[in-house]
């Protein structure tokens, strides 16, 4: 039973605090939608879980099946079963998709994957995603359109079979037909392998294809609201302003508590924390 736990996670980039205490738990077979306005830490959260070297964890922890993820290199996190479909996949000229994927698969095995077995699986996945058949021999994302890059991320997911996959705006750059193909493939894969999913997206449309079991709203480096899939529709119709207003109300309510009175209340065991 795969479980990813994010506990009180604080993350900064070049001394700027981006995440300010994120708590989240994702189990296998759960689909979590993470929404929120741009620049509030969604991509930072995903990249930190994957181990991007730019992000510094200043507080908190990430556990995967009880193991400390923060002590692992990105390749170890991947091999443990975590995957990140990136918002902006890198173009790596000179390295073919086939060589890259073979290296990634072999890193998970004691003996190298058989060529026939590998080609067969890759071809079948390329067909599922309706990608161009020459993909294997093309350089990794080099000269790919936005949509092709995103499909290539899903191809990698299918080949690497993670336990928990994070998708960072995987729907951007995809037209409606491509979106339905990707969502369909993803849905089937999720169902079959009971994969846990963590999906960052701005659009309700994607969540119509893949219905989340949990929805979280992230603002100012924290998860400010969690609910079920109905939250997606509310955001789509009303935006985020109502959450801002709700938070402002909460802050007004709390404002009268002075530091001194808080200390006093804590001492009496009457803390609201």
């Amino acid at each position, binding site marked *: 039973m795969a479980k990813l736990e994010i506990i009180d996670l604080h993350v900064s980039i070049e001394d700027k605090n981006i995440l300010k205490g994120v708590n989240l738990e994702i189990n296998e077979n759960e689909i979590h939608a993470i929404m929120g306005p741009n620049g509030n830490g969604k991509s930072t959260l995903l990249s930190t879980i994957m*181990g*991007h*070297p730019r992000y510094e964890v200043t507080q908190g922890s990430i556990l995967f099946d009880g193991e400390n993820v923060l002590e692992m290199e990105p390749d170890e996190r*991947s*091999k443990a079963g975590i995957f990140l479909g990136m918002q902006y996949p*890198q173009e790596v000229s*000179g*390295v073919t998709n086939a060589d*890259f994927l073979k290296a990634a698969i072999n890193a998970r095995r004691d003996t190298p994957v058989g060529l026939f077995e590998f080609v067969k699986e890759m071809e079948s996945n390329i067909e599922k995603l309706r990608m161009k058949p020459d993909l294997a021999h093309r350089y990794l994302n080099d000269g790919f359109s936005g949509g092709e890059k995103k499909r290539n991320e899903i191809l990698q997911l299918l080949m*690497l079979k993670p336990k928990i996959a994070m998708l960072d705006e995987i729907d951007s750059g995809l037209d409606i037909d491509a979106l339905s193909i990707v969502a369909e493939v993803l849905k089937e894969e999720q169902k079959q392998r009971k994969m846990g999913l963590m999906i960052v997206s701005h659009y309700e449309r994607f969540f119509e294809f893949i219905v989340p079991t949990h929805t979280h709203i992230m603002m100012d480096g924290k998860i400010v609201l969690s609910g079920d899939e109905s939250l997606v529709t509310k955001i789509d119709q009303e935006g985020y302003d109502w959450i801002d207003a709700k938070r402002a109300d909460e802050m007004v309510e709390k404002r009268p508590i002075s530091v001194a009175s808080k200390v006093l209340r804590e001492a009496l065991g009457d803390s609201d924390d």
Partner: protein
Amino acid sequence: MIDSGLHIERISVTNNHEFKQVFPKNTNGSYIVYIEGSGKLDVELIFEENAKWHVLWINESDQNLIIREKIYLNRDVMLNINYAELSSGNHKKQTLIEMIGNGSYVHVKGAAMVFNELYWDLQAIHHARHTYAQLDNHAIVLKDTKFEIEVTGQIDKGYSQSETHQSTKVMNLGHKSDAIVFPKLLIDENDVAASHAASVGRPNEEHIYYLTSRGIHKDDAMRLMLKGYLLPITEDIKDETIKERLITEIETKVDSQWKTK
């Protein structure tokens, strides 16, 4: 003088060594040369009219070696020449390509991995009309090493409708390494085309992260990327024997530096 077809030579240099080869009129084929030893090597390659050849030089010397190479291209010669400078040792090289016949063509593609020191002065000198030179080099400069390459395309007055192009890409892997590219175009004629591109960079951290995020160990990611950096130089090589040898040479040398985990 040699006939058309495939020829493989091995030059063993001791002290001063001279080597001359004439590629006769209207011949064509593939010519592969391995160089080893130390000292000074003077090379003269003469391509007679309408000779069409594909040449591969593999420098296997791991000692001190100075190579002076003069290549003469007569009328309508078509020369594709590849260099594999992928061995250790201190090497100094001068390659002068003298395009003395109208309509002569040369395409140089070089792959270098610098283990110690490599200085290379590469020149295409257009002494005739309607000549074409393209000089492409990719180099990887390892830690604590030195690499200098000077690439010159020269078209003198009167040699119109000629083209001289060059591109040099260098990846520098060490903080204390020196990698310098001098791209030069010396043009004294109006009716010509010329271009140059040169870059010296470090491995892209985002690329490494992307590859490692798929489970590939950092060393393996480097290995894949470095091969990816050098192997494009083998693209479009029509001679399959030469292409295969060059690919093997690059792969073996990169693998020797970054072992698979």
